[in-house]
């Protein structure tokens, strides 16, 4: 491996000083002259027809400047998944019926929040409550109420990108039995595979919805400039170009007439991708009123209406040989996507996508359904499907190991995919450190000594009992989704320093810093010489956005190419000054270009840039680079068939957990969590560790305490008091191992690190609890109540 000067080092974050001193501006901090405050009227009912909406009283209230209802927006539709087969099913404001508690009905803009709140109370909505359905399995029954019975056309927002329209789409064809999406994948000969097996086991698992909980609540400021005919927006998002695309489609104004401005993002975790009704309404109301409009959601609205992780029922059936070689696997997934499709068809595709890169299963069948219910809408959340599928599969593998009297580690190592494997869709694992991850995580937890399973007398009578567990996982490093690619522009200054223009959003994961490091390393300048302009659709080139874990690989590659481009131009200018014909004889480092053979013969970047301006037609040197979401394909893979190429590189991780179970109360304390993550190459070690810790912590919460508590579609714990995120005193000893596999397509070998290792924590903890006290909890989260009940009623 080459020695680097800047990448690989834990250099401090470039945004750190702003954030540490309170100077960092987030969307909620944006304030404009004459700004109005918007509020959203929401449905208190899970399923109801709207008979009438009367806004006349509210309109008369002094200080109210604009009101919009679904009547004004009858034809506006959009969705995260918007294909001819799965037509967009969301509307900014409900038109004929409301489908979940929190569904948007009207929006008001007023001179103050207080007036806006009063105006909401004056809007009279007459509802007719109709039967509702709250579980995916019940929703699939023939007699279940239909959440979506409207007629849609088979259009797509992506038609200008080559997607063809489809005729004859009807409600019964896209949402029969409330099924909003289906993925079916099969390869090998599944029946033969099961016949070949010495042992077959089937288990069913259940997972509850969980919340993202970014500390910054969602907000938007929109300001329409009628003179310039330009809409300016500030919003808390993971992808500025995707938001602009959605706003352009829904408002029916050209993308270039919308400018998304930069703000810092106070955490996202997948919950700030979709276009949200409040964003659309702010934009609509600023155009209507001519005044800037700000809408800030309160914490309850964030919990209720900004998407949650999909609750799922997952059945896994596996055939295995006595020696631990898997011969066949059959997986069924039912995901509740709530009142609108959200990312339903994506998550059932991804459950497959995060299942099959892990174990080499020769005969495999996967079927997933996403289903409408009258619950809150579900969308992407860190790992997007990975926690659910990895929890189920690796809990199941642990149980199989017990059946066979084997060490689960052995089964994992025997079946784990390896570098060079071509997985069934055609993706090649050019880098895969999964085996090293498993070995590292096991050693870090002292697997052989701590696993009670191997101890002569595993049963203990003490109150507090300890055990260990393991799980492994995988994650994409970017994929094909609008705008399909990232680009970077590097503007050289005449003192030899550089400004990077990137559309990437730093949502806390540190991309401004790691991208700066890539730039500095490639260009041969110091971190102090890099300036970042980011997150502005007007100033910055397109970017995939900070989701699907693509920033390091995709945007990082674009930045590296742009830096190389700038460097080449500097060298060409320097070559003339140095009297060298071939720039291949030159090297550049520390803002100097020198002759490799005689390093004393050099010019500074400053001299080279100035010479370029003076002698090369005024060229001040601007480097550009671009990189596609997945170099090898132009198309998004088929969600329903799982065909096509998925991602350029898979990140891998193995996670082990040691728990202590209080057998009197059922409380599980996570003592130690060890994550070994194959991130290709760590561009910034401190940041990589931070991503691993953040993932582990989120996984810990989802394994032990986090759960959206719903009764009849009503969310009972929309607060940090009752929705229990881990707090400081829950922090286990976190051990992190960085496995370097050098992904050939990644910048300096880097790939995904920000999402995968949420997923392994769930089964690692569940397996550790089983190891400690001999009970198996198959539903997430593992609350003290469930553990105590299982201990009291051993089956």
């Amino acid at each position, binding site marked *: 491996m080459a020695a680097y000067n800047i990448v690989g080092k834990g250099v*401090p974050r470039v945004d750190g000083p702003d954030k540490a001193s309170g100077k960092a501006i987030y969307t909620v901090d944006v304030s404009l002259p004459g700004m109005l405050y918007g509020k959203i009227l929401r449905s208190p009912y899970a399923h109801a027809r709207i008979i009438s909406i009367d806004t006349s009283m509210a309109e008369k209230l002094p200080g109210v400047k604009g009101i919009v209802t679904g009547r004004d927006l009858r034809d506006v539709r959009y969705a995260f998944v918007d294909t001819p087969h799965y037509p967009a099913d969301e509307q900014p404001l409900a038109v004929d019926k409301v489908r979940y508690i929190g569904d948007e009905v009207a929006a008001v803009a007023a001179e103050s929040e207080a007036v806006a709140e009063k105006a909401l109370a004056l809007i009279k909505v007459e509802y007719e409550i109709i039967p509702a359905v709250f579980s995916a399995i019940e929703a699939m029954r023939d007699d279940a109420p239909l959440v979506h019975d409207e007629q849609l056309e088979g259009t797509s927002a992506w038609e200008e990108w080559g997607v063809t329209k489809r005729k004859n789409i009807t409600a019964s064809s896209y949402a029969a039995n409330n099924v909003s999406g289906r993925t079916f994948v099969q390869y090998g000969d599944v029946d033969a595979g099961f016949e070949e097996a010495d042992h077959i086991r089937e288990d069913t698992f259940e997972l509850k919805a969980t919340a993202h909980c970014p500390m*910054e609540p969602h907000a938007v400021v929109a300001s329409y400039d009628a003179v310039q005919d330009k809409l300016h927006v500030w919003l808390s998002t993971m992808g500025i170009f995707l938001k602009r695309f959605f706003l352009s489609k829904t408002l029916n104004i050209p993308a270039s007439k919308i400018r998304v401005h930069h703000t810092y993002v106070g955490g996202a975790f997948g919950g700030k991708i979709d276009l949200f009704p409040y964003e659309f309404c702010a934009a609509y109301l600023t155009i209507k009123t001519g005044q800037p409009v700000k809408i800030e959601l309160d914490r309850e609205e964030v919990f209720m209406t900004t998407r949650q992780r999909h609750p799922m029922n997952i059945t896994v059936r596996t055939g295995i040989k006595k020696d631990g070689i898997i011969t066949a696997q059959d997986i069924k997934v039912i995901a509740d996507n709530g009142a609108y499709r959200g990312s339903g068809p994506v998550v059932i595709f991804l459950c497959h996508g995060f299942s099959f890169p892990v174990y080499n299963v020769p005969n495999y069948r996967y079927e997933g359904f996403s289903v409408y219910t009258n619950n809150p809408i579900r969308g992407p959340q860190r790992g997007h499907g990975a926690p659910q599928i990895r929890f189920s599969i690796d809990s199941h593998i642990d149980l199989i190991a017990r059946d066979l009297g084997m060490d689960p580690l052995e089964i994992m190592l025997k079946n784990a995919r390896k570098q060079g494997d071509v997985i069934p869709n055609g993706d090649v694992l050019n880098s895969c450190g999964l085996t090293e991850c498993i070995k590292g995580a096991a050693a870090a937890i002292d697997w052989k000594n701590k696993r009670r399973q191997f101890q002569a007398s595993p049963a203990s009578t003490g109150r507090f009992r300890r055990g260990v567990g393991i799980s492994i996982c995988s994650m994409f490093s970017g994929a094909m989704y609008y705008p399909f690619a990232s680009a970077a522009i590097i503007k050289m200054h005449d003192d030899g320093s550089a400004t990077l223009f990137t559309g990437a959003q730093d949502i806390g994961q540190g991309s401004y810093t790691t991208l700066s490091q890539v730039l500095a390393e490639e260009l041969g300048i110091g971190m102090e010489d890099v300036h970042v302009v980011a997150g502005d659709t007007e100033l910055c080139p397109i970017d995939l956005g900070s989701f699907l874990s693509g920033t390091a690989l995709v945007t990082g590659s674009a930045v590296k190419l742009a830096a190389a481009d700038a460097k080449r131009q500097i060298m060409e200018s320097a070559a003339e000054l140095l009297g060298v014909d071939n720039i291949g004889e030159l090297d550049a480092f520390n803002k100097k270009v020198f002759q490799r053979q005689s390093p004393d013969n050099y010019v500074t970047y400053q001299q080279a840039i100035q010479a370029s301006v003076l002698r090369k037609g005024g060229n001040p040197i601007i480097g550009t680079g671009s990189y596609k979401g997945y170099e090898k394909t132009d198309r998004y893979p088929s969600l329903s068939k799982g065909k096509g190429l998925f991602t350029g590189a898979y990140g891998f991780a193995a996670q082990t957990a040691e728990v202590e179970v209080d057998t009197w109360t059922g409380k599980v304390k996570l003592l130690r969590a060890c994550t070994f993550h194959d991130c290709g190459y760590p561009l910034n070690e*401190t940041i990589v560790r931070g991503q691993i810790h953040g993932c582990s912590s989120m996984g810990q919460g989802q394994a032990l305490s986090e759960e959206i508590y719903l009764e009849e579609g009503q969310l009972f714990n929309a607060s940090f008091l009752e929705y229990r995120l881990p707090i400081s005193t829950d922090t286990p000893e976190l051990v992190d191992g960085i496995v370097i596999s050098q992904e050939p397509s990644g910048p300096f070998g880097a790939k995904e690190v920000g999402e995968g290792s949420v997923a392994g924590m769930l089964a690692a903890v569940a397996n550790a609890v089983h190891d400690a006290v001999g009970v198996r909890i198959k539903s997430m989260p593992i609350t003290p109540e469930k553990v105590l009940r299982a201990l009291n009623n051993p089956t």
Partner: protein
Amino acid sequence: MKKVIKLTVNGMEKELLVDVHSTLLDVLREDLGLKGTKKGCNQGECGACTVLIDGNPVPSCSLLAVKADGKDVLTIEGVAEAGKLHAIQEVFNEKGAIQCGFCTPGMILVTKKLLDDNPNPDEQEIKEAIAGNICRCTGYAQIIEAIMALAGRKQVR
């Protein structure tokens, strides 16, 4: 109903006419433009809006501004001196204790109080001191590492 209150904010004396139903958080952010104090939950559960009042950390969303009358308030904007970051701010950044930054102002102020009272807290004392400040990004490990470093202690592994 409005009331005149006097506050010393980051060393500057302020006399303000405030609505009696304004929280201190509202007054700091809206009246004084001190947007570094963040509103995370608005019900005293997350700690993002923490400021020091007479040296003690208090979630400013849970305190009426009128109740702070006559008190000394330190917000995140007052921690750096003469444009130079405080050691807590420097070390937080060096150790990776900052990710999205939204909990950071509150976390830094609580740390300041902790270290003002006890320059050498151990790991358990650190965890207890920040137990009212929720961070979703870091899993707390690098925050604890940063405070350990400030306290001159090595984390026990």
